[in-house]
């Protein structure tokens, strides 16, 4: 297992109180257990678990995180917490009628897919200190016992204990290896675009698709 399994990322134009921690795991065998922690609202598992095969790049992933964190700061989250907000930001579903249920459904859906693929990604956002959060509306549903000053080391230790899988760097290269393009294009309704299929250069084609997915993510929920 790699030594630095959890990567700390500081995003532009977010207050220093917000830190993003990223980790990518392959061959996760206890997805069922992780799912149970989420559904049981185990406050020790404040993570946004994402099916890595639906992720195009770090850019897309971090755009979703950025969107979730800005929604949290503005008090406009559509789901109970910033982690579920990340998951919803990445999903192609715009229906968040009942935030908690929708979120559960999403999580469930994601985790079900874990069992069919042998690649997993895991991502965590450390929450800011409580007094620095403003305009939070829905997070009261979620008990928060965990201190917010966890270091990447603490998180890594916690993940190593509970995630049974192989840790790899959360890089564009690693992500590209597991991206399931046919599934993604279907998922994000990106079929039937002949001009994209006509692009010969694979990288250029992926760039176009990535931008379309990110644009759609930005639009969602507005």
């Amino acid at each position, binding site marked *: 297992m790699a030594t630095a399994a959890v990567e700390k990322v*500081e*995003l*532009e*134009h*977010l*207050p*220093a109180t917000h830190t993003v921690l990223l980790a990518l795991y392959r061959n996760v065998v206890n997805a069922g257990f992780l799912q149970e922690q989420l559904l049981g609202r185990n406050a020790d598992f404040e993570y946004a678990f994402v099916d890595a095969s639906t992720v195009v790049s770090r*850019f897309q992933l*971090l*755009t979703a995180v*950025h*969107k979730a964190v*800005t929604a949290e700061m*503005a008090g*406009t989250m559509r789901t109970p917490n910033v982690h579920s907000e990340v998951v919803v930001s990445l999903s192609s579903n715009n229906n968040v009628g009942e935030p908690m249920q929708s979120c559960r459904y999403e999580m469930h859906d994601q985790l079900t897919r874990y069992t069919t693929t042998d690649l997993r990604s895991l991502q965590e956002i450390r929450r800011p200190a409580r007094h620095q959060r403003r305009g939070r509306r829905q997070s009261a549903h979620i008990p928060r016992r965990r201190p917010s000053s966890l270091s990447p080391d603490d998180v890594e230790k916690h993940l190593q204990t509970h995630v049974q899988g192989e840790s790899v760097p959360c890089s564009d290269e690693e992500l590209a290896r597991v991206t399931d393009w046919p599934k993604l294009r279907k998922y994000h309704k990106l079929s039937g*675009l002949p*001009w*994209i299929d006509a*692009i*010969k*250069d694979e*990288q*250029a084609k992926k*760039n*176009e698709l990535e*931008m*379309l997915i*990110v*644009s*759609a993510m*930005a*639009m969602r929920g*507005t």
Partner: protein
Amino acid sequence: MATPEPAAAIQPPPPPADSTSTHEFPLPPILQHPSAAGPAKLITQGAEGRLYRTSWLTPTRLCALKHRPSKPYRHPTLDARLTRHRILSEARILQKCRREGVAVPALYGIDESQGVLSMEWVPGRPVRVEINEFLRRRAENYPHGEGGRGREEVTRDEEGAAPLVGLMRRIGEAVGKLHKAGIVHGDLTTSNMMVRPWEKDKGLTKGHHGNGQEYEVERSLEGEIVVIDFGLASQGSADEDRAVDLYVLEQALFTVVLEAYKETFKAAPVVLKKLEDVRMRGRKRSMLG
């Protein structure tokens, strides 16, 4: 010009109070947070809003951030409604263009309540700047001398004009694609079209952004036309609106011609005044009758 003396009864109203505005632009909230790439740079300040160049997610990915600040003269309810509507409309149009393969900036993020739209930063320069520079370069290479209008020079001029013709064709294609996608731009000037250098080394037909960093290229009008600023754009297929797009473009392109004309020819102002007369005479749109 002699102004008549007002009669005693006529007293001008008091002059407007001196503007004491310090002319500060409040940054949108997102730009008030720290950024490793340094402070955002104000690029343009239009009536619609302000365009900043800043970073997105990481310090190296550039982003064009458009802020429509709230207007103090507008009723707050109306102001919020309009800002939201316009940000969303612009975002939808950008997304629609991308889906249809029209080269426009990709959408990164929207905050309609704050009136903020974050987009891909398009490297390169506006068509206006590119053409002006091209014409200036040509004027230097082929100075207009007496008796220098030989056959050889004409041929050389025609050859030299090829990049410009190519650029014009690409502009036409870009606008054609835009209209085909059901979008009317609403302000199709040469400042609202960028020439994005091709990524030659990758042999791409579409100039792409990669990580969005600026890179140095040889300036020769080469590049993909990227239409920007959809602040006045609308979805629609009215031929009248499309025709207005073309009219604005026609005027804008001719303005570039005239600018270079003025720089080259001292007596230009006299001719341009005369041109005005010719235009008035020849124009069809008289509202008389």
